[in-house]
């Protein structure tokens, strides 16, 4: 039988099978909106902070992510008053305060503007409170999972503010969400005019409800909390509002009892995601790919180095291209493990020359009580039995 003949016969059999609803070997039906394979299990770890639904955080399984993009369904979450259910036809964005023309934008009006798509990381500044205090979670998801990276699509905030017309004296923009607690943050006008986006798209589709559907701010390289979700109001002002989330929270207590305020930028940080805490390597050594993520709120990552001896010596890791500014950067390093105890860690340098500090260097300045913006080097201890633990 010719191959063409075989194909036709098989096709006819499949058609017949379909009509008779007999078992088929041709696979499952297509799905209008896809799901991953049922064999794939990575999930976020959820921690509710109160008895109130949807208030707390969920952490991205960084050890199970490939490349630099976080699937939208696994993007980390941090909510202060739950996740609102918003009808985009009813939602509007109000711009008022020190502007010539207070304006209301529908979601469709924002979507109709010239679009900008950019890949940016988001990290909660409280990502590693436990590591700061010397009591880290045992794995990278718990320890650093308030970190994700997406392609975001939206309109430039500058274009919206210019349309409203800034009045003299305008120095801050107070962004407010339509969540139940109307969470608000004050943002310096300069950053709003530089690269801040009002986005509706995430990884090619509409924002997920948990990421601020239908509109959120993306403030590149700045702490997660200021990227206000469910955005419904921008109040242009001469002074910051001193809202609860920029005074009582998201300020950093220094050892002398003073607190740093308006600490926006996420400074350069990296972490090895494989192998990492909770994993087990085959006993006896062998060749392993050490891989992880690096990121900085100040431009681009220039260099990532990996140490397998607890920081005594470092080796340059390979950076996955393209390396994008204020996005996650994937690094890889080929490691010949001798089967003995080892301490794996990475450190990164950004385009400003800033080098990621050790815990001791960090704590010498910021102490152990800050809780926010912890970015020190993260060591993983590999035992001779192949188990990987946090140090």
């Amino acid at each position, binding site marked *: 039988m010719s191959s063409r003949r075989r194909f036709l016969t098989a096709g006819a059999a499949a058609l017949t099978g379909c009509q008779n609803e007999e078992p088929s070997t041709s696979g499952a039906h297509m799905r209008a909106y896809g799901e991953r394979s049922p064999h794939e299990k990575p999930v976020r770890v959820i921690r509710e902070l*109160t*008895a*109130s639904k949807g208030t707390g955080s969920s952490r991205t399984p960084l050890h199970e992510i490939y490349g630099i993009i976080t699937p939208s369904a696994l993007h980390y979450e941090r909510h202060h*008053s739950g996740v609102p259910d918003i009808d985009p036809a009813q939602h509007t964005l*109000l*711009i*008022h305060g020190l502007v010539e*023309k*207070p*304006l*209301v*934008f529908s979601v469709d*009006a*924002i979507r*109709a*503007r*010239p679009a900008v798509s950019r890949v940016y990381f988001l990290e909660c500044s409280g990502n590693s409170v436990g590591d700061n205090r010397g009591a880290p979670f045992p794995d990278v998801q718990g320890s650093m999972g308030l970190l994700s990276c997406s392609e975001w699509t939206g309109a430039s905030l500058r274009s*919206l503010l210019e*349309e409203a017309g800034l009045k003299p004296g305008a120095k801050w923009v107070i962004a*407010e969400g339509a969540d*139940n*607690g*109307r*969470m*608000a943050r004050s943002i310096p006008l300069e950053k709003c005019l530089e690269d801040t986006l009002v986005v509706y798209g995430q990884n090619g589709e509409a924002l997920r409800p948990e990421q601020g559907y239908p509109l959120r701010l993306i403030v590149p390289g700045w702490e997660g909390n200021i990227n206000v979700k469910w955005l*419904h*109001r921008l*109040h242009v*002002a001469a*002074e910051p*509002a*001193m*809202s*609860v989330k920029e*005074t*009582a929270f998201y300020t950093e*207590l*220094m*050892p*002398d*009892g*003073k*607190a*740093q*305020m*308006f*600490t*926006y*930028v996420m*400074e350069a940080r990296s972490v090895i995601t494989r192998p990492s805490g909770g994993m087990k390597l085959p006993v006896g050594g062998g060749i392993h790919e050490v891989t992880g993520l690096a990121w900085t709120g100040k431009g681009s990552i220039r260099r990532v180095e990996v140490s397998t001896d607890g920081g005594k010596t470092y080796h340059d890791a390979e950076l996955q291209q393209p390396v994008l500014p204020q996005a996650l950067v994937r690094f890889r390093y080929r490691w010949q493990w001798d089967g003995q105890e080892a301490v794996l860690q990475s*450190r990164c340098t950004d385009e*400003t020359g*800033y*080098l990621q*500090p*050790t815990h001791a*260097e960090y704590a010498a*300045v910021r102490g*152990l*009580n800050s809780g926010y913006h912890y970015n020190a080097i993260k060591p993983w201890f590999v035992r001779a039995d192949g188990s990987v633990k946090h140090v």
Partner: protein
Amino acid sequence: MYSLMLLGALWAQPAGRPATAEEIRARDITVFPNGAGLPAGGGDAVKGAKIYESRCALCHNKRGEGKAGEYPALVGGRGTLATKAPKKTVGSYWPYATTLWDYINRAMPFHQPRMLPPNDVYSVTAYILFLNGIVAETEPMNERTLPAVRMPNRDGFIPDARPDVKARR
């Protein structure tokens, strides 16, 4: 060419529509440290104690002690900020009394935010300040007196000094 120019002109049209004064009033809840945004009205801690008991105590406890690990304490912690166990509360940490009014007004009670009328927000604010020993029990809190309240940690904040941590190669 003409159609391209027309497209350009359409593209440049304002996509937002003018906001009415009523729309702004309905949505604008920002209160600034200088008192801008505070509505007329007033209250005191005596009145606030009763409202607190029915609306706030379930989570924040009888006198602002909070519930460990869940609902933050509102009271206490003075003198702890430079210790190994700092306790950050309204009394020990918050730099502005207006922030307390703004937050209660926009986000509390947690399950029914924005249900308290302005006078009740003034009274609950007064009560929490009273529990912290910052105002007297009968001291009136209103749009003039509240911004003038000096919080104990008013000078406790410093600007961002990054890059403050120096690493060595």
